[in-house]
């Protein structure tokens, strides 16, 4: 310990016990965390065992009935399927397309900052803004995409991007991909900077081409970043909500209802707060299981490396 600090302590008299300092410094944060995270989660767990509408102060206890209903809930399983479909697309795209883009951007030497900034700026926009923007772009009659297609004589390609059941999953995916690509690319770019230049120099001396450099140096060195990316992309996919609220609201029919949007529909719009809590709890438990598998795989991967 530096002498100055010891001197300071002497001036202040007896040092505060460690637990007092912990309470003073950590207490407010812990209280906030308990109030806004732990307590709602515990209450959510309790409400999942009730038939609460959200409008009354009493919440009739019904045991595990909500969970039994959940097993036969077609809408829930449809939401799970759609969420997983989107999640697979999102994980693949953010894990690999962002990686390729990062490697390409890493080679850019002129206007580097500007070009990287252009890719990153959609991530700065809030989900609300991005989704509204896409909504306007995708409108059948007046959306910029279709106007452009008609303008260049490709009327036949003008589509109802949000209303066609075959296209709308990819519309949602495109929105998420556009919004998040910059973030994931930056994540890889940052990790690319940590690769020692000696490795590139050695590869050059050995006559390795760009593909070999990528497969033998960059890809293996980026594996930890790929793992992080895939986990973050998974979270992005499972949490799809804001994009749905702003653009499709689950339409057409219930075809773009994600798990998050279904919980919102049940709890807020259909007054089934108890059942919505049960869906939340079930989803939480499923995610814990997925996370446990991921962590196990990650550990194995670390040992292999």
């Amino acid at each position, binding site marked *: 310990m530096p002498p100055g600090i010891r001197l300071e302590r002497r001036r202040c008299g007896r040092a505060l016990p460690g637990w007092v300092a912990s309470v003073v410094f950590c207490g407010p944060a812990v209280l906030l965390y308990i*109030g*806004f995270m732990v*307590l*709602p989660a515990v*209450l*959510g767990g309790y*409400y999942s065992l009730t*038939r609460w*509408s*959200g*409008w*009354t*102060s009493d919440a009739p206890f019904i045991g595990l009935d909500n969970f039994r*209903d959940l097993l036969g*809930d*077609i*809408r829930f399983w449809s939401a799970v399927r759609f969420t997983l479909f989107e999640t697979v697309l999102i994980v693949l795209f953010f894990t690999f397309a962002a990686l390729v883009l990062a490697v390409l951007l890493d080679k850019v030497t002129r206007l580097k900052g500007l070009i990287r900034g252009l890719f990153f700026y959609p991530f700065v926009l809030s989900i609300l803004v991005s989704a509204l923007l896409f909504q306007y772009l*995708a*409108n*059948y*009659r007046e*959306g910029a995409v279709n106007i452009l297609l008609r303008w260049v004589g490709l009327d036949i390609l003008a589509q*109802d*991007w*949000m*209303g*066609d*059941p075959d296209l709308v999953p990819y519309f949602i995916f495109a929105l998420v991909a556009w919004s998040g690509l910059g973030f994931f690319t930056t994540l890889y770019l940052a990790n690319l900077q940590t690769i020692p230049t000696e490795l590139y120099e050695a590869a050059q001396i050995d006559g390795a081409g760009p593909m070999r450099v990528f497969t033998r140096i960059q890809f293996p060195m980026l594996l930890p970043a790929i793992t992080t990316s895939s986990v973050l992309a998974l979270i992005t996919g499972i949490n799809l909500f804001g994009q749905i609220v702003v653009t499709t*609201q*689950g*339409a*057409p*029919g*219930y*075809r773009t209802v994600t798990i998050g949007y279904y919980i919102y529909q*049940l709890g*807020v*719009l*259909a*007054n*089934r*707060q108890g*059942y919505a*809590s049960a869906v939340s709890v079930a989803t939480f438990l499923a995610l814990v299981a997925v996370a446990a598998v991921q962590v196990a795989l990650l550990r194995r991967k670390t040992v292999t490396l």
Partner: protein
Amino acid sequence: MAAMAAAAPLGCQRSDDGRKVIRVTRNIGGREGFRIHFEAWKAAFEKQNHGWTMELIDLGNAEGSEFYKSRIATGDLPEIVMTWQLARMLADGGHLVPFADDYYNKFGIALPPPYKGKRYTTQGGIQVQGIAVNKKMWTDAGITDAPKTWADFMAALAKLKAKGYMPLSYGAKDWTAAMPLEYAIATSLYYDRPTPDKPSFTQRRNTKQVRFADEPEMRIILKNLIDLIEEFAPKGAASDGYNEEQRDFYTGKAATWIMGCWIGGDIEPNKVDFDIDYWPIPSMNGRPPLFLQTSEIPSGWAITTSAAGDRLEKARAAIDLFYDPHVYQLFLNGESQVGAAAKVPVKGPQSTWPPAQKFFDSMIASTARYGYTPGFHIALDDMPPLNFMPTLAAVCQEILAGNRDIDKLLKIIDDEWDAARKGE
């Protein structure tokens, strides 16, 4: 929110913060007529209650479920809320202050059906739902009288299409998707008012005596809806909603709009310069066409338990001023409704803008000629689930998306009904 909701009943109701303000909710959105009425109501209140003001909470195009529940959670409901069928949920939660029968008698208003023995809402005017038509286009297509049957209606739309007009203004992105299906169900399954011998379809569906999937009329309705959407829904309708429907109709692009009478309140503010007729809903079951009347049950404002002490007195004063003749006239103008308060010297909507006045006249004459049914808007405890309209919207979106399986579409309605009832 869950934490706050848990805390609210434990005594976290927000007390009077000292501001002399009565907060009022209203779904104004882009409806200028609604805004003009509110400003007049506020001015009348401030004039008669010195130092007090009314504050608008505009719910846009929403019915306010999310807003009210968040305010219940924080113990801070506005003093006056515009309720519609949400009155049931608010009353169940003990958040509303009932009106005495004297209140209705004071203004000559027919007593609305009580909910669990009490009445909670003001009654606005008589609101009907029918079909608005661009008179010039329909005349050009050779039709000058309201189609009586669904077949007549479809034939008329075909003639309009053949003339090169956009026959129907239809957007399926939001609740507007449900309108044709709502009309069809309300005027078919609910054509007759319920009697003790034959309760409403709602009551029978609640006790599972009937199901939508077992009703032959529902199959006809869905077949007709499929035909309507296939033939006449504009391409890209799934991207559009109420605002686009209004724009297409009011700019003279579309010939027909399946929408409630409140659209009449926007004719003058939007300077619509052509004549519009308001016609009844064509019949799908061989009976005469008629209008749907949705205002017999709560169609107005209720006082919440946030209004206590002085605020309760002032909230009651504000509710009374709703029937000030000038304010009430503007309400009827904005909503395009006929007066329902016999002791108020205002009988119906008025406008100095000729197309608006012609619309009002057409609506009043057609309603008198064809009559109306309350459809499924019978009483607060005799209504479909709150999510019924969103369910109908989803079914229409499914049709628009290419789903032609009537059994599956009917299953959606039945399943959603049963699921929603679990939340009530």
